[in-house]
């Protein structure tokens, strides 16, 4: 297999300097005589540079970002809705919301993805990205709802009373008084949830959605390098979660300006 790969490499137009470097050490590689740094170059060349394979990772990352972004929106919307339902004081709504949260939190996410993919959308031709968004969004919504609910409950009752005593309606009080404060409390946990979401979309590799993990896996199936493709994927995950952590940290500091601690 390796020789087949090496052989095919010679047939590709040796256009870039990376290809030239590789060709220069190819004979040594066949003989198993590469030194440490040459071995590292070989790994990078085969798993990233050769045949524009880096594009596979980037495309995978694009899909991961796409699914995560829309799933986060779905999750946020669902979470808000479900949190409101649970706090509404209307028994049937509370029941429905409770059952939803119970099922999502009480079963493995992989199982949920499989059921949605094969069970619900099994006989419908639909973009896997959409399935991914629905599955991850539904899952995230349950956790987000709990985060928002506890955020709202953490706001002192006196705040609601003050709002109502000023003649604000229940909804106005929630929106203008309670919610901004709840969000500030809930933000670190929400941030965590979004980071978790980015990582958990990797489960969609199971339904053959070529997101970042699947992309790495695809390269592995080509090169039989056990480490490098996954490490490349891992680094890209770290970049995404790192940037998100930074951004949300900034937002959190801005929201905290009223505290003047």
């Amino acid at each position, binding site marked *: 297999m390796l020789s087949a790969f090496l052989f095919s490499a010679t047939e590709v137009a040796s256009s870039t300097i990376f290809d030239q470097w590789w060709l220069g050490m190819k004979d040594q590689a066949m003989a198993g005589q590469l030194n440490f740094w040459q071995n590292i170059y070989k790994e990078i060349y085969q798993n990233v540079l050769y045949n524009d394979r880096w594009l596979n990772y980037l495309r995978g990352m694009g899909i991961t970002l796409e699914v995560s972004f829309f799933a986060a929106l779905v999750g946020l919307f669902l979470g808000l809705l479900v949190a409101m339902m649970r706090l509404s004081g209307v028994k049937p709504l509370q029941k429905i919301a409770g059952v939803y949260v119970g099922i999502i939190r009480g079963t493995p996410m992989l199982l949920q993805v499989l059921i949605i993919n094969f069970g619900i959308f099994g006989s419908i031709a639909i973009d896997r990205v959409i399935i991914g968004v629905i599955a991850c969004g539904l899952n995230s919504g349950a956790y987000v709802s709990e985060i928002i609910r506890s955020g709202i409950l953490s706001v*002192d009752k*006196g*705040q609601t*009373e*003050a*709002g*109502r*005593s*000023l*003649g*604000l*309606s229940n909804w*106005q009080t929630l929106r*203008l*008084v309670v919610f*901004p*404060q709840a969000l*500030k409390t809930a933000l670190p946990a929400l941030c965590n949830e979004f980071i978790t979401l980015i990582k958990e979309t990797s489960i969609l590799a199971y339904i053959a959605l070529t997101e970042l993990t699947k992309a790495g896996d695809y390269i592995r199936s080509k090169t039989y390098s056990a480490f490098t493709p996954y490490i490349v994927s891992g680094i890209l995950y770290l970049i995404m979660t790192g940037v998100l952590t930074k951004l949300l940290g900034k937002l959190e500091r801005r*929201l905290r*300006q*009223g*505290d*003047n601690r």
Partner: protein
Amino acid sequence: MITVKDLHKHFGKLEVLNGINQHIKPQEKVVIIGPSGSGKSTFLRCLNLLERPTSGQIFFEGNEITAPKADIDQLRCRMGMVFQQFNLFPHLNVMDNITLAPITHKLMTREKAQQRAMELLNRVGLAEKATAYPKQLSGGQQQRIAIVRALAMNRDVMLFDEPTSALDPEMVGEVLDVMKRLAEDGMTMVVVTHEMGFAREVGDRVLFMDGGVVLEEGTPKEIFEHPKQQRTQDFLKKVL
């Protein structure tokens, strides 16, 4: 202005209010005193329906506000409330705390509301704090802001729920001064307090509550100098 008929409030099996009948006249200053757990605060909170009475009726200018269809928010626009814990909104600065309700209700434009807020802030001597956040202020300053916030919508009645109980002693005076000036301006006021000096000086009528009923009521002179009920005498002996 406010008429209360046979007001009862139960929390589960606990009977907090056991039939209260009151009539509060325009511009009257009613001070409610009594031991803790006597139902003073609950009574006050029933007046703007922060607590829903279990039974009984409350009328505000002839309209029954305890009726199921009564517009509570409308009522609360005319009845300001000041809380023991101030309950300023920590995420908004002083100006936004004051103007939130008038602007949300579209009673005033933003400019008009801010102008009125500055007038009121000037009156309580806190104009320079307009852009401060509540946590930057002392308790006394916060409570004065809370009074301004409650006044921002041209109120007809002001309810005070132990407004000085959470304050350090040296700050009680500044809040009471604001309340006294409000009283002099002719505001109708219902005040639950432990400040007997204030009750004596400002009150037109003092209610002594115990066990969920108004045990004794009268002018400050009658209540403080010639209390008829044994319970009232015992209570005043402890607090005076």
